[in-house]
């Protein structure tokens, strides 16, 4: 005989050790109940073999956090569009969390997302990629079992699945392109020192240079991800006589081009510049920017699939899916002045 609702209420309340009022609140999806208590009541329902009320099954849990470091660099809105669109198609709603100057920190956003009981979080760039940044909030997400997917290289110990552009391949493409045109003194304008994807690219560039038996050298300059910082870093490298600049983002590359001009030189005649991302309008720049394109459509779709699999109960694999970038050659790279480049 099915227990009456009143009996069910009493039974659950007794099992969990809370008042019937609290159980009632949880069953009617009303606010004002601690997360831990809510979970305990729902678990008790399951254990006692009672149906969870329909409104709690999946409908409510349809929000996914989408955390971005900014929206200025066009690559981030592009990613948000791909990921947001893919989520919406599957009936989930992206909650946008963009860091702004003087606004909420990433940890604050994660607290808000946890309060809102999101079903999962996608991070497109953020503190997980920065060795010196706080990582406590990632631990909280893991503890609560919230599905998480990261974009691009992360610090080692976080244990979340990740989709990433293959930084090794990106570096090889850039290095190979410049060296094949006769450049031997290369410079890299990359992100801050603790930025993981930048570290990977630097390591790859240095490795390739070390295999050139001293013919090719690579100087490194670190910068925050802004046009102005890119310009300053590039200026330092130009002073050391580099003729080819590999940059960590298109924005840094635009800054580098300005540094070249400020030094009285020309792109690409005197100095070649390669960007990274291939964000919108980079074919309209002066000169049109040679860059490494991240395959964001494929990566975005893969990230959403990985996330929703976890949401639907599959265990999270601590894996990194690598995607091949492609070098898009436009007008900011050319043969080294006076050099004898390999046949193109």
């Amino acid at each position, binding site marked *: 005989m099915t227990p009456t609702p009143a009996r069910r209420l009493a039974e659950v309340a007794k099992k969990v*050790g*809370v*008042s019937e*009022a*609290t159980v009632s*609140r949880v069953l009617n999806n009303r*606010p*004002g*109940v*601690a997360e*831990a*208590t809510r979970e305990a009541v729902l678990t008790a329902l399951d254990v006692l073999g009672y149906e969870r009320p329909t409104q709690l099954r999946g*409908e409510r849990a*349809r*929000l996914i956090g*989408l955390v971005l470091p*900014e*929206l*200025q660099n*066009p690559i*981030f*809105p*592009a990613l*948000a*569009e791909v990921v*947001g*669109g893919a989520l*919406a*198609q599957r*009936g989930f*709603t*992206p*909650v*946008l969390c*963009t860091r*702004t100057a*003087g*606004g*909420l920190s990433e940890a604050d956003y994660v607290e*808000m997302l946890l*309060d*809102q009981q999101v079903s999962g979080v996608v991070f497109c760039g953020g503190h997980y990629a920065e060795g010196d940044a706080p990582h406590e909030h990632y631990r909280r997400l893991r503890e609560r079992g919230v599905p998480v997917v990261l974009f691009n290289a992360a610090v080692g110990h976080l244990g979340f699945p990740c989709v990433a552009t293959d930084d090794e391949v990106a570096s090889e493409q850039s290095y190979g392109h410049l060296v094949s045109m006769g450049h031997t003194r290369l410079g890299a304008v990359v992100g801050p020192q603790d930025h993981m994807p930048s570290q990977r690219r630097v390591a790859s560039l240095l490795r390739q240079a070390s295999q050139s038996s001293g013919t090719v050298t690579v100087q490194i300059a670190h910068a925050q991800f802004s*046009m102005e910082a890119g310009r300053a870093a590039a200026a330092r490298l130009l002073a050391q006589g580099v003729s080819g600049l590999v940059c960590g983002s298109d*924005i840094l590359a*635009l800054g580098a*081009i300005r540094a070249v001009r400020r030094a009285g030189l020309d792109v690409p005649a005197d100095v070649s510049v390669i960007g990274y991302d291939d964000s*919108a*309008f980079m074919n*309209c*720049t*002066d*000169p*049109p920017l040679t860059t490494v394109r991240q395959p964001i459509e494929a990566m975005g779709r893969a990230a959403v699939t990985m996330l929703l699999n976890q949401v639907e109960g599959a265990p999270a694999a601590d894996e990194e899916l690598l995607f091949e970038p492609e070098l898009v050659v436009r007008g900011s790279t050319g043969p080294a002045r006076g050099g004898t480049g390999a046949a193109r």
Partner: protein
Amino acid sequence: MATKLTEVAAFAGVSLATVRRVLNDQPFIAQETRERVLTALDVLGHERPSRLRGNRAGLVGLVVPDLQNPIFPAFVETVSAGLVKQGLMPVLCTRTADGVSEANYIKLLMDHEVAGIIFIGSSYADAGPEHGRALEERGIPVVLINPADANDGVRRITVDDASAVDQSLEHLRSLGHSRVGMLLGPMGHIPSARKLGAFVADWERRAAPGSDPGAWRESVAHTGFSMEDGRTATTRLLGAGVTALICASDALALGAVRAAYRRRLSVPGDLSVVGFDDSPYMIATDPPLTTVRQPVRTMGAAAVDALKAQIGGNAGPPEETLYEPELIVRASTGVVRSA
């Protein structure tokens, strides 16, 4: 009240002072302690203070047509920051090519019981009248920024499109241009229609008596908003003999520049181009783009204030407020080439 607090303190195993601090949401209390007190409240059947409830009343939908045009991410960023400062949480809704439309988002948002919706560059009119009615019936606060269509009766924060064109025309005339054309969005797109209105009014003021009043039509093209659309439409307009183009967006302007280059024309030597919107990378384009900048921060803040007022129940009249843009002169406009 005192008894209740003592009860809670005893149950949670903390002091009365701690209970008070948690209820007043004061800082420097261990999360675990906070949880114990809140659980004690629940178990003893007392209501949590409203600001600690963490319910969904704080979600605000941000509906944008896309994030490709940099003006939309710019608005999203400033509006999001403003919302978050107010303790509200922005939910991003971008229309996608494969079918997630305003209508889908509105339904999703209503299912989630959002506190309000801000439409940027679009509106629920696109979704159909039944959605507008549904929003109205539920009394959901709505603010529109630069709506694409007419929306009387809803609070609107709009850039002054007519002023943008007046400033562009004045600039071009000062460079000697008399044959100016326009590259606009689709017919029916209200901001484009307003720009056209200002253009035509200027034309009529200058028209020689007895001249054909509709002659301006040859110099105006309506098209989609992509750079490619701009390029195609410009090729047609170049045939009409224009020496300068006022464009409804920067993407269209960049398309116009490309069309000129394709015809071996120089910008600004043979053709001057003025864009609309502005974004940080328009200084790096070829050539750096003369354009009209929208006061994004001011408009974003106004939209958040308007929404907050509606949520709080003291909405002002559902009127439209116009915001003055400014012309940013870079290198895509120049003196007209003498014949």
